[in-house]
């Protein structure tokens, strides 16, 4: 396989799937912080 093709698909995949992973992490961090806060508040909403 040509080096240019490998470079293009690697960069393209990283940019596309990297954004998917970043949003997944964003979703998880929101919930994790909430659960931590919920616990520290004694379970009150």
């Amino acid at each position: 396989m040509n080096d240019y093709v490998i470079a293009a698909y690697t960069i393209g995949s990283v940019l596309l799937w990297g954004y998917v992973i970043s949003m997944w992490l964003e979703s998880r961090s929101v919930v994790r912080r909430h659960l931590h806060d919920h616990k520290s508040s004694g379970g009150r909403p």
Partner: protein
Amino acid sequence: MSSVQGKLVRSYWIAVALLFAADLVLIIHYTPDERSMGAVQKIFYLHLPVAINTFLACLTAFVASIAYLWQRKGWWDELAAAAARVAVQLCAVVLATGMIWGRAAWGVWWTWSPRLTFSLILFFLYVVYLVVRSSVEGRERRAIIGSVYAIIAFLDVPLVWLSARLLPDIHPGSIQLEPAMKLTLMASFVPVTLLAAGLVVTRFVLNRTSSAAANSDQANNPREIRTAPFVAGATLHGPKAIRQTGGAL
């Protein structure tokens, strides 16, 4: 979000990843090399579907912005912001893959041909859209300014589309493909389009989460906030949760 919805979302992304991988196998092992350009032409199977989906994301932002100005419903603005954010990401892929192809085909990473120039302008127009949104105070004011800007920014899309056809341009305007190449191109549209649609929807739900948090914070009303995709079986409550969600675009 219920656990069933969470499982569906995860299944969706796993299916897209598998389709993406299958498409790569198709491109590498099934698709023949183009006669004049050789294997470098295979960049085209990522470049074109992502470019078309960039236009679709810009179109979504355009339509949602018009709908917001018409109906003044906040979720139209959030959809426009989500589509614009994804358009930036997709346009970055178009520019990167195009530059690599240009280096192989023309011997230069960049040339100021009409299509390349309008594509770069498109990228910066939507980057500026995101910057403008994040710098404007007030939800309604931000939505109005963002909507007007997104409508104007979309005018660059037909320029990108038509530039290689109407103006003298080094960028290919059309390309003749063998049946196996056409099949691969059609197949490549499936994972890329599903990925782009998934990104817009996910970004939209994250925007809704942030917006709901901001509204609740203003009203100091401990209402329930639904969580973003990927995460199953959890909801947010109250002002503390509201502060944590931030103001994602």
